């Protein structure tokens, strides 16, 4: 296993001779997408005409499917099959594994036991989507309903420590808090949110003998392949899973759903390709969501602002049978210095759809609490909110004492303050008007962990010089195709146009997929390793080939650039070498594993958000006027895709602060918002002036390229900056997100 020390050496990426690293090149698949010619899973052409499946959802939250009458549906025009819990073919039991090396267990569909509203209880396949839909309406179910726990707040008494977890304590929080001269004790509430990806879950499946091919929309290739194999109870070698283009994942497609299972099962049963897609309503009710979190923050400070005591305790919820903890307190373990610390989580189990990971799980909710609490404490102390944070800036990780790999939080705040014009903020709320609008400024810090997972990649060069990178990685719309092309081209010293990238296929060398902002670092490091191995193979090929101008040279001295392989001024184009010495092409693989000593460092990405909002005192409406963020996230691979990721995260933070929430109906267990007219995310008009910049940074403890993730950092803290700006604008401190007109109006005098 390697050490982080190995990663400090110069590489083609750090040398960046052709300047491709960092360049804002256009999206690799951009043209395909904007011209509508990128086939998403549902649009993939099947080898023969497909049938269409429609899912039927449970209208009750808990109980049993007592009976199902499918006769009318079966007799309806075009119907091929009708399945309910009583006649669906055998599937692996939930979580069961027959292949010992499977990463995931079975995920069977159409259980008779109902665990949440919207769980699928029926499935109809017909020759057309319309016929399937019409027939689905004819299936008659009877249910035996049981009492269900549906409302988070009503079940606080049942909150428990998540299994296998303990509170983290440093020093003696209670004593230090009790003795602190300045104290804050407030609870903040972040709402339940849905992923609301543009592309719903969808699968096209067909069989060829014992082997099934599925095109599906999923963030993790291996995870999906193994789940399906276990559900079908077949070896995973008989499942080929492809996911070439994905219309948004945000964590919600980290797992597979019933579209995958039932499309594969029905295609087998019918001997015909089958397509299944979720409706918009099913996306809300039958996937996962970000759970609501109640966060109690306690801060005990000296009069000069130094924190003696810090606690963040989060209570959240999950589906009874699907344990998941939104770790809303974890980020705070590395953020501010305080000798006495307490962080922990409690979990309430409910009979509603499963909670799960959503962009920046933990931080996105958690920072809404502490970053407002710091604003409130600053006011109590008569300090500027940035000054308070500067006074609590730790030298080493405040919980573990480990050194930071890199930490530029202070520069993010000071640089941002200057560029944003923070000095124009009047610390007294409610003082600035523009027409009828009350105007205020707010800021918040951002932190999000950085991760590296094991991954592989394969790269081949063909006789025409084309270099093809292949990886069982996904691009969920973030720019993965593009940065992998850049890394490969820069590593091998060829123009971008010479590189092809093929992703999303379980036949390719595996990568963990997209999630936890580890994608670029993980997939990219494997691609880089593969590229380095190809350099080595080509160097050996050239120096061993009597017909090469490099014949007899030391392979260690070989350089790559401008499409050539060279030693000093002896050079030849790569394709000339390959066509002559290896006409069948050269293929190598490379891999990355986390360094053995990676955990000796506290490793995060950082940022600071600045926001200016207007509050309408007549209506309580809040409108963002401008927002600016400064971020430090390692080496930036592509200025354009990184900026889109970081500003996209900030925009989500705006939505989190102002617009986005769902609620559970206490009688039915269903979400009240079930479509994008009712579930509000920011519209263009909400985001008038929003921008960001990255500080120069290379994190040589992160991976061989010194890059870090940017996909999730932008959302962390963004909403708190907005809430702080709202307070500064109008003096209303609302600790229950989002800050809807209803809540703001109620808080206004």
């Amino acid at each position: 296993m390697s050490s982080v020390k190995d990663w400090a050496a110069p590489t083609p990426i750090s040398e960046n001779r052709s300047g491709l690293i960092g360049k804002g090149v256009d999206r690799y698949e951009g043209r395909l997408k904007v011209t509508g010619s990128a086939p998403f899973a549902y649009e993939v052409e099947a080898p023969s005409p497909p049938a269409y499946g429609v899912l039927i959802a449970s209208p009750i939250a808990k109980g049993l499917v007592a009976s199902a009458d499918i006769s009318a549906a079966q007799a309806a025009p075009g119907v091929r099959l009708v399945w309910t819990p009583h006649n669906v073919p055998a599937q692996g039991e939930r979580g069961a594994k027959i292949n010992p090396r499977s990463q995931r267990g079975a995920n069977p569909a159409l259980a008779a036991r109902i665990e949440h509203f919207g769980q699928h209880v029926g499935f109809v396949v017909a020759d057309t989507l319309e016929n399937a839909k019409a027939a689905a309406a004819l299936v008659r179910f009877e249910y035996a309903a049981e009492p269900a726990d549906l409302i988070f707040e009503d079940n606080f008494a049942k909150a428990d420590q998540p299994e296998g977890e303990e509170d983290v304590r440093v020093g003696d929080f209670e004593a230090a808090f009790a003795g602190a001269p300045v104290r804050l004790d407030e609870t903040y509430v972040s709402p339940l949110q849905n992923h609301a990806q543009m592309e719903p879950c969808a699968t096209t499946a067909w069989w060829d003998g014992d082997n099934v091919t599925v095109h599906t929309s999923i963030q993790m290739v291996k995870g999906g392949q193994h789940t399906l194999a276990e559900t079908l109870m077949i070896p995973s070698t008989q499942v080929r899973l492809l996911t070439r283009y994905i219309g948004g994942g945000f964590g919600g497609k980290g797992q597979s759903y019933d579209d995958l299972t039932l499309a594969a099962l029905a295609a087998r049963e019918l001997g015909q390709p089958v397509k299944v897609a979720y409706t918009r309503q099913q996306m809300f009710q039958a996937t996962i969501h970000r759970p609501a979190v109640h966060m109690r923050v306690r801060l005990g400070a000296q009069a000069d602002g130094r924190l003696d005591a810090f606690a963040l305790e989060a209570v959240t919820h999950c589906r009874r049978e699907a344990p998941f903890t939104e770790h809303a307190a974890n980020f705070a373990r590395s953020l501010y210095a305080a000798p006495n610390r307490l962080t922990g989580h409690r979990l309430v189990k409910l009979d509603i759809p499963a909670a799960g990971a959503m962009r920046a799980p933990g931080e996105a909710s958690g920072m809404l609490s502490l970053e407002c609490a710091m604003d409130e404490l600053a006011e109590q102390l008569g300090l500027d909110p940035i000054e308070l944070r500067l006074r609590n800036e730790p030298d080493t990780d405040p919980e573990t004492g480990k050194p930071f790999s890199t930490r530029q939080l202070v520069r993010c705040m000071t640089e941002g303050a200057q560029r944003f014009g923070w000095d124009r903020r009047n610390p007294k709320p409610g003082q600035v008007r523009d027409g009828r609008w009350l105007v205020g400024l707010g800021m918040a810090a951002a932190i999000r962990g950085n991760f590296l997972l094991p991954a592989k990649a394969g790269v081949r060069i063909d006789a025409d010089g084309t270099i093809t990178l292949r990886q069982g990685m996904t691009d969920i719309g973030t720019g993965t195709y593009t940065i992998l092309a850049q890394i490969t081209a820069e590593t091998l010293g060829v123009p971008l146009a010479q590189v092809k990238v093929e992703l999303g296929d379980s036949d390719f060398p595996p990568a963990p997929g997209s999630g936890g902002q580890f994608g670029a670092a993980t997939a990219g490091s494997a691609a880089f390793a593969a590229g380095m191995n190809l350099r080595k193979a080509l160097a050996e090929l050239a120096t061993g080939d009597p017909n090469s101008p490099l014949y007899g040279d030391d392979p260690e001295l070989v350089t790559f650039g401008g499409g050539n392989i060279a030693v000093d001024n002896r050079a030849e184009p790569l394709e000339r070498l390959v066509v002559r010495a290896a006409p069948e092409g050269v293929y190598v693989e490379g891999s990355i594993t986390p360094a053995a000593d990676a955990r000796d460092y506290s490793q995060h990405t950082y940022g600071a958000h600045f926001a200016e909002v207007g509050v309408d005192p007549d209506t309580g409406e809040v409108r963002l006027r401008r927002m600016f963020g400064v971020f430090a996230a390692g080496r930036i691979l592509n200025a354009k895709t990184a900026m889109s990721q970081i500003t996209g995260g900030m925009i989500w933070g705006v939505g989190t602060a102002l617009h986005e929430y769902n609620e559970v109906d206490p009688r039915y267990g269903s979400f009240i918002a079930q479509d994008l007219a009712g579930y509000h995310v920011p519209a263009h008009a909400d985001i008038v002036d929003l921008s960001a910049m990255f500080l120069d940074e290379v994190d040589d403890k992160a991976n061989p390229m010194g890059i870090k993730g940017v996909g999730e950092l932008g959302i962390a803290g963004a909403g708190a900056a907005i809430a702080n700006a709202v307070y500064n604008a109008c003096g209303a401190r609302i600790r229950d997100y989002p800050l809807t007109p209803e809540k703001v109006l109620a808080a206004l005098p």
Partner: protein
Amino acid sequence: MKLQIEQPTHLVDISRLPLAEIEDTPEGGLRLGAMTTNSQVAADPRVRARYPVLAQAILSGASGQLRNKATTAGNLLQRTRCAYFYDTTKPCNKREPGAGCAAIGGIYANTAIFGASEACVATHPSDMAVALSALDAKIETESGAGEARVLAMDGFHRLPGDTPHIETELRPAEMITAVVLPPPPPGGQIYRKARERASYAFAIGSVAVAGGKVALGAVAHKPWRAEAAELALEQGASPAEAMAAELKGARPDGHNDFKLKLMTRLGAACLTTTGAGDDQ
């Protein structure tokens, strides 16, 4: 139809009827053909100059793409946005008369504070209709048999009563041919809409003022003509007093109480802007 709320056996395409003109009327008003689009009406120079309240109301609704397709008649006849209406697993008297109303006792808050019934508490979502109400527009219709009628905007939409599925006075086989705007009233005009994001969201409360006429949106099963406020204004009340007089008749349900404060403030602000409370 996509959600199987309506499952008509036949659809009649009216999109090519010659009803897409905006014409001047001899009285000095405008006749908006039923098929004029929202975008077309809002951009018409005569509408913008003489009926700014209408242009503002239309432009505050939906999105640019929707307004390009939405028509004057279609917008008036759009269905409520009550969340339970769209969830076919829930009882809804509007969808299925007699089934019950899931919104009562539910958590959907954009419900009526005026004129709700035991059968239905939904609100009408149109912005345009609120402006038309304040403008005292007339609706021209024609039946299958060729019979023409003229209906006052204020009486066109119905309160829910115990037949919330019957939303307007339109009879079976009768269609809207035009909406007629009377000459613009003297005095200022304004439309303001409160909503949960800056665009592409339905109102949680809106106010249209045209001279001394006031209509409120998102507070009732129909555009709500604020007659008590109008009367108070005539009698010399201040904007805030006029709104207080109107809202005395409101019956909030616990979930939508915020609409009282919202409508009081928004209404008073609009009346102050147009000077409707000043001596005219």
